[in-house]
């Protein structure tokens, strides 16, 4: 080819085109990880044990125990497709007393831009119907945290305990335990949109900061008054807490990518 300006320009243009395309046409591949952090709060305050919080009904409570099961995590990519955590690796005990348990490190996540997460609180009907299959060490893990029931075969989904002072009680122990009650599974499913995308890459682990407002467990669409009973462990109260309140206790504070 003869040496000509237009050929040099053509070659330069091509070269420029390729270099400027690398960022836009990045191939997202491989696997990475994502962290879901569950930060317990009580209303407008951070949750701390043995700190007095006053509910709208005037009852003053102090929390001594807050543990809940997060399960069946599903992440949605920006194109609408989803990634589901393998079921037998999908049950976590988030325990306020154990800081490391409040950050769920989820491995082997396909690299992608994620826009939302959904999960359940407790153990779902499908897992109950599968019996012990896939449970691995779950009973042993639950035993260590007092998260099994003593009168029914299964697990506590939410264990929320402390003391209450009101017109009827002074520093009386309250216990809220949700779970399957007979043939009612009381499993709550929640979907949360990310305010900004979580960019999972082989070398980028996004962290999703979830706020869990435990006040809303007992003060939501359903209001629990401990003067009606200090133990809330079954029946319609647990059904209502699980159906009406638990789905609304979570929100996403922020997502940061590395």
């Amino acid at each position, binding site marked *: 080819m003869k040496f000509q300006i237009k050929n040099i320009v053509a070659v330069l243009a091509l070269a420029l085109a390729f270099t400027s395309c690398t960022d836009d046409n990045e191939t997202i591949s491989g696997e990475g990880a994502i962290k879901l952090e569950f930060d317990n709060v009580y209303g407008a305050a951070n949750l701390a044990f043995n700190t007095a919080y006053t509910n709208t009904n005037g009852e003053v409570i102090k929390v001594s125990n807050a543990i809940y099961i997060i399960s069946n995590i599903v992440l949605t990519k920006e194109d609408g497709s989803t990634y589901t955590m393998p079921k037998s690796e999908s049950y976590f005990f988030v325990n306020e007393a154990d800081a490391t348990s409040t950050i769920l490190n989820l491995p082997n996540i396909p690299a992608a831009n994620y826009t939302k997460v959904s999960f359940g609180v407790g153990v779902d009907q499908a897992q109950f119907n599968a*019996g*012990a299959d896939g449970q*691995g060490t779950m009973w*042993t893990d639950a035993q260590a945290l007092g998260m099994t029931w003593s*009168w029914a*075969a299964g697990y506590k989904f939410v264990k929320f305990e402390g003391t209450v002072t009101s017109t009827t009680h002074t520093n009386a122990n309250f216990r809220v335990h949700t779970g399957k009650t007979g043939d009612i599974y009381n499993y709550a499913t929640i979907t949360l949109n990310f305010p900004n995308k979580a960019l999972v890459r082989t070398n980028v682990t996004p962290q999703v900061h979830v706020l869990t407002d435990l006040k809303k467990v007992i003060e939501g669409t359903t209001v629990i008054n401990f003067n009606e009973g200090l133990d809330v*462990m*079954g029946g*319609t109260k647990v059904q209502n807490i699980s159906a009406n309140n638990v789905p609304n206790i979570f929100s996403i504070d922020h997502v940061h990518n590395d």
Partner: protein
Amino acid sequence: MCFFGRNFFSTKSICFSFTGFPFPSGLKTSIMKTRFLILMALVFISSCSTNNDDEYQNLPINYQVPSNFPPLAYNMVNNPLTEKGFELGKKIFYDGRLASDGVVACGFCHMQEDAFTHHGHTFSHGVGDGIGTRNAPPIQNMAYQTQFFWDGAANHIELLSMSPISNELEMNGNIINIIKMMKNDSDYKKLYSQAFPGKEINSEYMLKALGQFMTMLTSSNSRFDKYRRNESGGTLTSEEIAGYQVFNQKCASCHATDIFTDNSFRNNGLPIDPKINDLGRFRVTEQEDDKYKFKVPSLRNIEKTSPYMHDGRFYTLEGVIDHYINGVTNTQNLDPGLNNSGTLGITITSNEKSQLVAFLKTLTDNEFLTNPKFAEF
């Protein structure tokens, strides 16, 4: 003892004994015999290593649903029945170390000769002489049932063991300690690796092994069963047949199918014991219309499972039938089947009562009650 080795001079495998070797023909010289002996010694030594277990094949159990039974309620696709799974489950069932006192095994309150109930006990005494408020139910035909315990505190055969193991009045066990004990026990290590190869010892496999054992506790060879299946040994007397007819008219709506339960919870009008005021199913669901309802029990082997009812209040079958004749009280949630426009109970003549008792005794399955495969020793 017999171990398998290979005859290096042919492709056949031979069973060797300690005392002698079958020298293959063709070893004509003493040098060849010596070499053969050395080779066999090496085979013997290598076979004596702990890898011997790798050669063991865990055989599946070919379980057949008896033709007069309803279908299995238990889906065993992820826990298929195998010989070693059953053996492991049996060992666990009879192991007192699951209890905090090292004594109260499942088999302590569930004794085979009484169809796995606690004969003569209204309530059983568990660890620390803890006494509960419920009568130990039989363990039989569990794989055909969908609710367990008097109040349905479990609805999956693999999960039900969590309750008696943990309950402070029964075994007062801690699964963390139980698994640790098993991981340090050479018999358990071997059995788990044979029953569930490649899997770690954990509560999932413990519960699965127990599920296999309980599934195998199938009682289906009473004289009644043989009568139902037209097998030899299945002759009923005319009194027993009359009893079966009365039963079908007056009892089978609740004690349904050849498992003799419809797996539902009902209040059969027992006067409430004020000392206990047992609310039954309500304890699990806390639903008002579940108060005083208890699971309809299976009546198989009923001759052997006295005393009767959730609190063992009746010692005889006649006592039970008398209750239905004139003992039913109109308590909260009384079953509509026992309240006929204000007339409570079931009309049963004294003749019919004897026939019923005769019929109920045909449900005794001696094969099940004495089968050495289910026995502790």
